[in-house]
């Protein structure tokens, strides 16, 4: 007996509107804090913010207090999660609590109205149709059909009635269910999923990804970055696209090759790899290779890979070239002096010294984005294709078994919203009273939403009958 009262007390607590209001307000207000204090940021950033707000002297203390309350990662703190769980429980229990009442309204059979009841409805109309009762009946039926409903006839009176859209009354519960689904999916994904990252230099293979804390997370397969490129808009340094060519390797065999870009990730065995960044490999080892596309005058192109300091020959000629320097981003200043303007590979270039028996020695920069630098005096061309191994691709790695639940929730929400806001439960009654040469018509109607809209539709349909 005691159990029951506790259970019913808990039930009553979760059905209370006060709890709902309190949770709405709490979630909204605490969320604001999280947008002011930068989340998961380096401590210095927030200390700087507090120094602005409370003065330099108090900044350290303020930061310590705030981080001990979990406010620097508040959306994942136990108390924020607890609020979301309460919100979920509140939403579910409130919905279950109200469902029987709504079911009664939905299942209630439509009955003919007593004449006196016709005046009680918010939407009502009276008109006369010239002709006998049969003409009037046909007209009334057409009118109801035009409203998109199927009419039923009353037994004893000349009355027709109809309704439609009664199930739309459940729409709001579909929305509630969708929110619960989304939260469940998120919880499921956070518990059984994985979010991390992986920085993979060109040519390297990894069997693990890393958590935000830097811990290794085995993938169960290996992933290799075959190549990475950034393309730019025209001659500007505004990136147009980042792309990585990835291979998935299992048991020493390449099982999948795919290029990914921003907005188009790679999916394999539950893991998704997103293009999220890129950078320069700091410890420049010997693996870095310069790839040149060499075309002798009137001859066929040939691709050559070599390291800085190595030499190559232009096929079919006596010209030999030695790559003596590399710049990731070459530009020329006002005096035509070359300089490197960024560490990123915005315009890679190599300095090549050529020797030829006929033409002597000459040298110069060959830059990837300056086609005018590719031509040699003898008419052959050397194009810089890439400096392979210089960059790494930054991948966001995620495994989220809950994402489909979240998507299902989104779909339910879209359907629910449409039904809840743009459809309604409509009822109509039409009573015919024959007189000598005409028929008196009384109309009453009801809708649970957008009364004025329904009224104007009814007016336009029935005004046509009167004519």
């Amino acid at each position, binding site marked *: 007996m005691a159990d029951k009262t506790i259970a019913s007390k808990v039930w009553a607590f979760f059905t209370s509107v006060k709890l709902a209001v309190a949770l709405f307000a709490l*979630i*909204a207000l605490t*969320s604001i804090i*999280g947008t002011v204090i930068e989340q998961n940021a380096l401590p210095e950033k927030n200390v700087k913010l507090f120094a602005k707000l409370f003065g330099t002297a108090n900044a350290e203390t303020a930061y310590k207090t705030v981080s001990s309350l979990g406010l620097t990662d508040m959306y994942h703190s136990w108390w924020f999660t607890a609020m979301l769980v309460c919100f979920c429980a509140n939403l579910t229990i409130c919905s279950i609590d109200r469902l029987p009442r709504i079911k009664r309204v939905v299942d209630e059979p439509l009955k003919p109205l007593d004449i006196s009841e016709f005046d009680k409805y918010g939407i009502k109309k009276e008109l006369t149709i010239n002709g006998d009762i049969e003409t009037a009946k046909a007209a009334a039926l057409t009118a109801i059909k035009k409203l998109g409903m199927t009419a039923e006839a009353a037994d004893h009176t000349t009355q027709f009635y109809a309704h439609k859209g009664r199930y739309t009354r459940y729409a709001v519960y579909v929305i509630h269910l969708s929110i619960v689904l989304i939260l469940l999916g998120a919880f499921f994904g956070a518990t059984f999923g994985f979010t991390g990252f992986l920085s993979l230099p060109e040519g390297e293979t990894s069997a693990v990804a890393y958590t935000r804390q830097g811990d290794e997370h085995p993938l169960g397969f290996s992933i290799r970055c075959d190549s990475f490129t950034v393309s730019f808009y025209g001659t500007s340094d*505004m990136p147009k696209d*980042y792309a990585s060519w990835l291979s998935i390797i299992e048991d020493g065999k390449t099982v999948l090759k795919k290029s990914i870009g*921003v907005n188009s990730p790679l999916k394999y065995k539950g893991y998704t790899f*997103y293009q999220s960044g890129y950078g320069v490999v700091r410890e420049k080892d010997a693996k870095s290779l310069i790839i040149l596309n060499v075309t002798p005058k009137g001859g066929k192109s040939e691709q050559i890979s070599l390291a800085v300091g190595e030499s190559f020959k232009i096929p079919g000629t006596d010209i030999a070239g030695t790559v003596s320097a590399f710049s990731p981003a070459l530009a020329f200043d006002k005096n035509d002096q070359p300089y490197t303007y960024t560490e990123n590979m915005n315009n890679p270039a190599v300095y090549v010294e050529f020797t030829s028996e006929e033409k002597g020695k000459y040298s110069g920069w060959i830059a990837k984005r300056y086609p005018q630098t590719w031509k040699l005096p003898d008419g052959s061309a050397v194009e810089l294709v890439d400096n392979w191994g210089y960059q790494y691709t930054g991948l966001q790695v995620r495994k989220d078994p809950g994402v489909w639940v979240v998507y299902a929730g989104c779909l339910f929400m879209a359907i629910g*919203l449409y039904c809840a806001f743009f459809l309604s439960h409509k009822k109509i009654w039409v009573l015919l009273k024959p007189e000598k040469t005409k028929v008196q018509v009384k109309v009453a109607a009801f809708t649970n939403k957008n009364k004025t809209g329904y009224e104007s539709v009814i007016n336009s349909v029935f005004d046509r009958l009167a004519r």
Partner: protein
Amino acid sequence: MGSPILFGIAEVGYFVAMMVYIGYFIFKGKAVGVAATVVAVAAFLSQTAALLFRWLESYGMGIGRAPLTNLYESLIFFVWCLMLGYLIIEFKYKNRTFGAFVTPLAGLALGFIDLTGISKEIEPLVPALQSNWLLAHVTMSFISYSAFGLAFATGMLYLVLSTEKRTEPSYIFWTVAGSVFFILLAAMGADFLKFKVIGTSPETIKSYLFRATFRGGGPAALLSFIASAAVIFSVWRYGHVLKRMLSSFGMTLDFLEDINYKVVAVGFPIFTLGGLIFGAIWADQAWGVYWSWDPKETWSLITWLVYAFYLHARYLRGWRGNKIAVLSSIGFITVIFTYLGVNMFLSGLHSYGES
């Protein structure tokens, strides 16, 4: 020829329309009302053409994208949606009165563009924005913002008409909120006069916003705050004059409440679907997280909670009248913060709108 000129025409047009609507509101001449509508429609058409031209121009530049991708373009689109929504209501309900309350919102947005010096260039898209979700997400977000803006205007009007005593909380709410909007508009007007008309714009500052007043330093700032307090006080003291003027237009409280609810009922589902759900799906594809609690997302959620509260208070508790009007106004204030405040004060993944 081209979009900048047409945008200029639209901008001037909206300011003129604002003046004429306010003139109509004060003097009530039928001809003045028609003139206001004509100017507003002309400005709207010019803006529509400008948007299309800008779209075309981007193809000419080899970028080819909808004009919806930075702060400038989104503000322009917001104004466009707002005016479209307003004109629909004006034609449907044959009532011009609240033009005097909607056009200032449009003016506020356009003034903000000019004074903050945000870039008007057609720039190519960074990779994260190159997605088909862009159009759906941004369009629907701004349609809903505009709907919420209309709800704000009707909500404020409702409060003006419905409140009686100066001590009523609702009365205090509308006088303070209304004055703050008026002050912001006036401060922008002052900036505009000082830096654009008289033309002493120092090259060194990019944003002129409130430089003539609150951010002007020294006596100018002090004077501005005193003047603001005076404005708030006098609006509070003489608010009933506005009420008397309004009530002669035969706008009923039921009409305002009906419109207020209708626009929220359109805005809320569009915001949920386009703003939150489409945004989440897109983020899932581009960033690998459908929800990352970045400031913009969080503020959208707060906005969503406010309007969800509005709907539940109305359906379940049967809230009507002042309370609902206040809620819809608070909702729009959170919308403004989600949209501009986050970009100005907080950082995050959605920082494309900066500069």
